[in-house]
């Protein structure tokens, strides 16, 4: 692989090396969580976790297991850094990002450790591009303390059904209200916009519904926080919607990449504080 033409001086000092034959298997997932400039990368022997946060109310995580990579070598238990995600994502498409079958950009991502830039070696058709993205001190991601014992509602749907709803959401509404109940309307998304109120109902015996375990809840979330999750929804085939006793929302998306492998993206969102939960 032509990527062996990397700088020899840095060759042996990498704490993290990850290679992919098709960079889109990483870049597509990362695009799904790019709603802010900065992302926290955390690599462990299990794989890569990328976190993006917004105003301490929203957190998105993308998980790419070590098995997805053709090569994943890590010399420490945990390697963390922060990068400008927008700038980073300009790199994988350096060759034009064509979707011609059989033509893929290969990636070799290397990190020397604290203080060093993240180096991406991208290769397509014999041409190599080396990108060095500056890293920063990683911030500690917020722990939303969302644990399965506190989960009051859990719904697993096929993404197909939600995609339509999310793409049509009334953006003039400040909130998105999620109602989950063992009785009618079961699972409802509501908006309250300038033109009126809109409700999307999903009955529990619908084909799209794979799992339905609900007690009665109705919570509101800021629309501006949830709208970015549409990108992850668009990529996914299944989504799990869970709320806990505090009204915190967890959306988990199952994403299949170009090669059919599975990755996860999850969103945590705080409820809109003006409304008291029932």
């Amino acid at each position, binding site marked *: 692989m032509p990527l062996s*033409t990397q700088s020899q001086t840095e060759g042996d000092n990498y704490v993290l090396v990850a290679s992919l034959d098709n960079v889109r298997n990483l870049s597509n997932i990362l695009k799904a969580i790019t709603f802010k400039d900065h992302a926290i990368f955390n690599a462990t022997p299990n794989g890569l976790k990328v976190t993006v946060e917004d105003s301490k109310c929203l957190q998105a995580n993308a998980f790419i297991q070590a098995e997805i990579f053709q090569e994943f070598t890590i010399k420490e238990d945990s390697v963390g850094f922060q990068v*400008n995600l927008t*700038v*980073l994502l*300009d*790199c994988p*498409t*350096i*060759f*034009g*990002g064509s979707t011609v079958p059989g033509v893929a950009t290969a990636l070799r991502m290397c990190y020397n450790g604290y203080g060093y*830039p993240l180096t991406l070696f991208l290769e397509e*058709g*014999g*041409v*190599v*591009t*080396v*990108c*060095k*993205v*500056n890293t920063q001190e990683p911030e500690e991601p917020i722990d939303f303390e969302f644990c399965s014992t506190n989960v009051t509602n859990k719904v697993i749907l096929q993404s197909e059904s939600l995609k339509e709803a999310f793409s049509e959401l009334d953006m003039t509404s400040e909130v998105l209200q999620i109602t989950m109940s063992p009785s009618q309307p079961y699972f409802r998304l509501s908006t309250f916009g300038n033109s009126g109120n809109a409700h999307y109902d999903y009955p529990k015996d619908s084909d799209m519904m794979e799992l339905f375990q609900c007690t009665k809840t109705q919570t509101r979330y800021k629309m501006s926080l949830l709208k970015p999750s549409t990108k992850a929804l668009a990529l996914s085939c299944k989504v799990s919607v869970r709320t806990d006793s505090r009204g915190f929302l967890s959306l988990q998306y199952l994403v299949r990449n170009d090669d059919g492998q599975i990755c996860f993206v999850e969103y945590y969102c705080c409820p809109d504080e003006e409304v008291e939960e029932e």
Partner: protein
Amino acid sequence: MAERNQTTDRTLSHAISWQISQPLPADCEETCFGQLRSVTFGYCLHIVHDVQCVRRLQIQTTEPTGDAKSQVNTFLWIPHLHLLTAKLTAWTTCKVTLNIILFNILACKRLLCSLVSALYLSNKPFSICVVFDQANFFDEYQLEGVAPDANEICLEVTPENLSRALRTSQNAKCVKIKLTKKHCPCLTLVAELPTLSSVSRVVTHDIPVDVIPRRLWHDFKEPRMPDFDVSIYLPPLKTMKNVVDRMKNLSNFLVMEANLNGEMNLKIETDLVSVTTHFKDLGNPPWGDDGSQGRSQSRDPEVMAHTRVDIRKLQQFLMGQQVNPSKAMCNIVHKRIIHLILLHEDVSLQYFIPAVA
């Protein structure tokens, strides 16, 4: 375009013929990039900023007889001139932002079209020169130049106008281009368009042009090959365009470097990121044994010559490529100029991009 003053034909041709007969004054200064000259004594060539801050060429002259300085526009009208042409669309689909295009028509088989751009975004213009052989394009070609010993005509026209006219005649049965005089000199394009009936449809475009006087012709000759440090074949233009388009998102300036080992790198560097694309095995053109190769002959093949340019200019060059050239190469003068040459059948296209600090 330069303003058009009201003046009589007689005064005009009188003034103009006087100008043609004057030799070029000795004291002239190079203003920018060797393309435009400022001359004194009787003529001035101003570089004027108009409301859009674009540099324009405005030529003032003095009346040959009087002491009063009157502004007379220097455009020439050569009557009885006919040029017939087939479709000339390859170079006009170039989407670069230009405000002047110069048409220099030589009777001796070469149609030279030189495009000078003075983008307000930078202080130095960059220029493009296209040369192609009229014999391959025209069915009929008649030209009566300025004088028997200078059988050429040099015209200035806005490319947008010409390109629009040519676009409507893309499917024409036949196209004639003539230099005519309406209220001012014009390139008149007459296209005979196909119709379903037997009566054909004729579309006429009158494109205003300015005629450049002979004493300024040397400014618009086919540019000399610069004394380059490295000459190299370009990588596939499509790949180059993709890379440069992406790099433009990250930085305003790009460094192009190449060596005599067929290697070229495109580099950008900002506070946040640095990106370098490496092209290998490109090959170096074997220029003949002339003076311009002198500098590069004794050169270490590994050493890179590099130049830093405004990335938008390189991007514009790459955007304009609708035709796949048979040969594409680049000469780099270390820290001075990038000279790009495209050859396609009998058409040659040369771009000069100056270095920025």
